[in-house]
């Protein structure tokens, strides 16, 4: 592992709260989110020589968190085919959790497809520009905005768009 400079180390530590927030948006709960940050930091440290001087560290790190999450989600869906986790069983056993149930912001976010959730996380929660978010995800800005629009509409629908429906 290449050594990390003191400056990079201080910068990464300064960004940990934001990485945790982004990871929370992706993973839902804090344990999984911190695991994700952990994995991402390990990867980042192993590859910090790939970071170009002057390149924005935050975007680079968000990208690593995001990619680690995709790997994790894939592994998860493989595992899910083998056994049904306990939590899921509980959800199935609760018939009250239907359409009439009012979802919290986080529950609503969890129901979105990954590709919409990550965009919502980067743009609406982290406040990145379309360009920055598109670069992190590796898609054209047009793709990003259409995912963002779909994610927004889905969230409004799930949260009960009482404040005005899109026409």
């Amino acid at each position: 592992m290449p050594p990390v400079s003191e400056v990079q180390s201080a910068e990464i530590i300064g960004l940990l709260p934001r990485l945790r927030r982004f990871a929370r948006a992706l993973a839902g709960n804090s344990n999984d989110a911190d695991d994700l940050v952990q994995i991402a930091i390990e990867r980042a440290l192993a590859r910090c020589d790939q970071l170009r001087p002057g390149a924005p560290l935050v975007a680079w790190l968000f990208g690593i968190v995001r990619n680690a999450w995709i790997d994790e989600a894939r592994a998860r869906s493989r595992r899910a085919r083998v056994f049904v986790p306990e939590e899921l069983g509980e959800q199935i056993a609760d018939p009250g959790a239907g359409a009439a149930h009012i979802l919290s912001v986080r529950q609503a976010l969890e129901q979105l497809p990954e590709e919409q959730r990550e965009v919502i996380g980067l743009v609406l929660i982290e406040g990145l520009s379309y360009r920055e978010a598109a670069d992190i995800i590796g898609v054209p800005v047009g793709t990003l905005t259409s995912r963002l629009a779909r994610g927004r509409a889905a969230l409004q629908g799930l949260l009960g768009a009482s404040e005005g429906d899109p026409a």
Partner: protein
Amino acid sequence: MKLSEEVLMAYVDGELDGAARDEVAGALATDPEAARWVHAQQALRRKLRADFEPVLSEPVPQRLRALVTNATSAGSAQVLAFPARNAPRRPWLQWGALAASFALGALVWQFTGRLDSTAPFTQQHGELLAAGNLARALDEQLAGGQPSSAAVQIGVSFLSRQGAYCRTFSVRGAANTSGLACHGTEGWAVQVLARAPAAQPQGPYRQAASELPPVVAQAVSETIAGEALDAAGEARARAAHWQAPR
């Protein structure tokens, strides 16, 4: 709605520059439908941010910080040791070792951080306790005749100088760690944990004390009172639920 959703969305997200922004702001005054849409989207944005804002002021887990700070010194110790309460401190039995061994710290974190009920470790009052399949193996598994496929292999069992039953163990899989745990009031307290040598054979093996990582073997030799238990002694200790004779 005269303005496209695309433009309105860019407006809400601060993507428009001065002139374009002013133009949309002006148009909203005469387009109540668009204005309603914009307000709903601004409210959604605020709601999301407000919901996640508190994460920023949470204390960052020490393990995550340590991961970064330790990388600057490129320390890669392979040993993680835990202070047993009321036990005399030895140089290798100190939390200080934690900071020096981020690789293993990470490992333990991966286990203890998960909700997974099969995680082999749990933390309680600053002690690392065996949990899940590790705790079960320490409670029930005898060194003789344990299935070679078992995720946890038990090594030697013995009475410590403090008068507690202790057992060495190896956890297979990605973790591939070995350690020593002693039975106490809270369960099996992990005394020392080390990554098994990389050259360890992959196939099934019955662990003997000589195959333990040196630090675990050292911990055994410093902790053991007399000889290791034989099969009969081990079975008797299990029957007594690892409550040491007085």
